[in-house]
């Protein structure tokens, strides 16, 4: 059983609670076996809610359910849907957790710390998802969103029903979105043409940056692991030794063990702030592309309806129906274009704000931690000299 109180988290999080009328946060999460239970806490002054404050337990699948219902809602087709939080990934540590439950082995401090870190990260993304919804004028009024925040029972039953209804229709379509955008309909609107080009380019570059950041973090963690091995080898060498050299080796092993933590922390810091930021925006860019895709589909539908109308007029059959269809398609397309423009414009602004905020926070964190590490290295250096000369034990 692993519990994390995110209030104690050393890492500042995205906080999109701009409006005091609906404030959501995830104050803690519980990791039990292979399930994570998030405590979703809501404070609201909105009349649509029955109570001013709620605290409910939700699982990752509940968030996905909420996301999917929103995606499937026709009304929101012209909006950028906040990306679903990724599934909590505890692969390695998870097995350990299983074993823990069965009383087989104990977790090392490192493993515990890693799990805690993963848990903090996953809390962050789940929290942001909810805050994105709450800070949007349309989503915050969503019925299912309210149920998610209010309903004090398990949402499992609801989730099952929803699955039967929608069957993930839209999801399957989204897969080929890029191709439609790239090869598809000729764009008449300059704004959307530019947006399309920008988003496609940006999307591939941010995916690339995310992948490279992850690779960099992994090699940094390898460096940290090496310090661990060196420390072990030093201890082995010390154990076999019976001279004054032994003491030096032991001290050295201690220092290297500490250095491992230093390097590990360096790797984690960058990962938590920068890599997470990049990962998040990779998903968000995808959500923006999805909007463009839906609009492109609507445009395609409109053009098809035009063709159908022409056909109908030629044949002289079902003209009224075709006209109605065409009118609706145009309406839909116009609505999507209008709302899409607003959404994409505010997306730009939001992206800039988020990058700014996170880059500043990351930098401040890096500076703070680097100063601490610098001090630690200074102390290790000093202590090593003193201890070896027998001045300090």
């Amino acid at each position, binding site marked *: 059983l692993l519990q994390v109180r995110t209030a104690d988290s050393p890492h500042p999080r995205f906080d999109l609670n701009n409006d005091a009328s609906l404030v959501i946060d995830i104050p803690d999460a519980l990791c039990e076996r292979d399930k994570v239970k998030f405590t979703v806490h809501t404070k609201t002054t909105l009349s649509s809610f029955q109570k001013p404050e709620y605290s409910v337990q939700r699982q990752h699948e509940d968030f996905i359910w909420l996301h999917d219902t929103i995606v499937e809602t026709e009304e929101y087709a012209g909006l950028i849907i906040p990306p679903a939080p990724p599934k909590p990934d505890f692969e390695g540590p998870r097995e350990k957790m299983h074993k823990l439950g069965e009383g087989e082995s104990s977790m090392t401090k490192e493993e515990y710390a890693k799990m805690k870190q993963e848990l903090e990260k996953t809390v962050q993304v789940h929290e942001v998802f909810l805050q994105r919804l709450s800070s949007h004028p349309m989503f915050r009024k969503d019925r299912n969103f309210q149920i998610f925040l209010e309903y004090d029972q398990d949402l499992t039953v609801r989730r099952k029903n929803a699955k039967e209804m929608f069957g993930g229709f839209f999801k399957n379509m989204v897969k080929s979105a890029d191709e439609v955008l790239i090869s598809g309909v000729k764009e008449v609107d300059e704004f959307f043409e530019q947006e399309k080009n920008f988003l496609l380019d940006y999307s591939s570059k*941010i995916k690339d940056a995310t992948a490279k950041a992850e690779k960099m973090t992994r090699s940094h963690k390898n460096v940290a692991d*090496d310090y661990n091995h060196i420390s072990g080898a030093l201890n082995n060498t010390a154990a076999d030794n019976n001279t004054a050299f032994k003491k030096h080796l032991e001290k050295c092993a201690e220092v290297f063990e500490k250095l491992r933590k230093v390097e590990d922390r360096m790797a984690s810091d960058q990962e938590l702030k920068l890599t997470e930021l990049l990962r998040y925006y990779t998903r968000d860019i995808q959500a923006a592309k999805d909007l463009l895709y839906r609009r492109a589909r609507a445009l395609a539908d409109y053009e098809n309806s035009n063709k159908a109308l022409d056909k109908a007029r030629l044949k002289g059959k079902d003209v009224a129906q075709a006209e109605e269809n065409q009118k609706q398609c145009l309406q839909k397309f116009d609505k999507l274009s209008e709302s899409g423009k607003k959404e994409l414009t505010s997306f730009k602004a939001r992206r800039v704000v988020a990058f700014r905020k996170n880059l500043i926070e990351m930098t401040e964190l890096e500076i703070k931690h680097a100063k601490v590490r610098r001090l630690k290295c200074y102390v290790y250096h000093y202590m090593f000299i003193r201890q070896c000369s*027998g001045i300090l034990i």
Partner: protein
Amino acid sequence: MSGSCGRIPPPFPDNEDQEAESDTRVLDSDEDDDDEGEDIFTGARSNPITPTSAPDEGDIFSEEGSYIRSDVHHATNGLHPDEEELDLFTEATVELTLTNTTSQGRREIIGPTASACNTTQVPNSILKPSIVTKTTEELEEEESGDQFELNIAVTNPEKIGDGMNAYMSYKVSTQTTLPMFLNKTFSVRRRFSDFLGLYEKISAKHSLLGCIIPPPPQKSVVGMTKVKVGKEDSSSAEFVEKRRAALERYLQRVVAHPSLLQDPDVREFLERDELPRAVNTQTLSGPGLLKMINRASDAVNKMTIKMNESDNWFESKLQEVENEEQLLRRLHAAVDSLVNHRKELCSNTAVFSKSVAMLGSVEENSALSRALSQLAEVEDKMEQLHQQQAFSDFFILAELLADYIRLLGAVRCCFEQRMKVWQRLQEAQSTLQKKREAEAKLLWANKPEKLQQAKDDINEVKLSTANDKHNTWESKVSQYERDFERVTCTVRKEVLRFEKEKARDFKQHIVKYLESLLHTQHRLVKCWEAFLPEAKAIA
């Protein structure tokens, strides 16, 4: 059988008191020791000379004033910059004396030493001057001007010639106050085979006496071929730097050895303008040397007859050496892994930096775009920091371990030498015994002529054969006994000196390594501090 130097061999020296005493006594009785334990190279008096000093809580052997002799380049990419003679030595000898408990338990703490702590050259002293302490003895001696200095640097690698006949020539510079040299400052150019030739000469003369001969750097056909062929890439630059540093360390170890320093071949190597080209250095290639060393330990293992209690010391010491060598190999493998992962981190950071720059170029918002390209630059700087750290990882830690693995091999050779001398003594003694028995038989058989012959054979009476230098078996046995005594003393002294050196060396290197890490963190702080205003400027 006598095998000691006329003293009781000490019990296994894990007790530091006894280590001190035995060392002193060994020195007193050792004929070969002519510098009385003064480490001329560093100019510091080593403690064995102070037999009256009661060792206190610290380990006095590792706590004497010491100077970091080898330089580790913290400058950007490690290629030794072309500098004036004087500057060379500020890099070559950073005076960082550690510790020190005097016999009275007093400690002197003074500020950074005047001469060598050149902060512009040694970036790791950015934050704070190195803590320096010296014993009162050392301070007194410095004032009295008794110290002799000898600093050696190997620099300025230059490729001479072209194609497969090309070779690297290195500048070997010496700065010294020792009277036995013609000048105070001088330099010569040497090539790799010259260093191997020096080793061969030293080895031929001193290894028989039981000295631990520092092994030369290894040959590398692959590395050199790249250089010869003229590849101007970073890997051949790295190879040359690695070799240059190894050659420097090699020479520094040679001159740190009191007997070797006195060797005229060493002096010639340092001073003479043109050296005759050393041939037959193939035998000294890495694998060749290794084979020789491995044969040494095999020979020793075959040695079953114990002489006296002092043999226990040698036997267990040898076992220690062998174990330590194995452990150091594993340690070296772990450090090697660190070096490689750090290099990976380096290249991954560079790649990431580029992708951030690309992202910045696509970004529409101009302030964010600029911030992202600044971030790319920060990551670029981090790549450089990682590069430097990898450099430190390698030159401070990995090469140190590699050197000591080979040095431990040289220590084993040293033990083999003693065994060879012992075997020779054994054989002579057994021959003498046989001849005595023959004499006794003849005595019983009452054959006077033959008896006389046998007696002559044994005794010190000279026989007529001209080539016979050791005329009789008895004198032979006496000679070999003396040889064995001497070798035993030397080996023991050498081993103790080596252990002292090793502890000191390791300590110094760890300190230096920690300094490099400190330096990296400091630069990191500066990097991020520079970026912060850029992040804040995003609008």
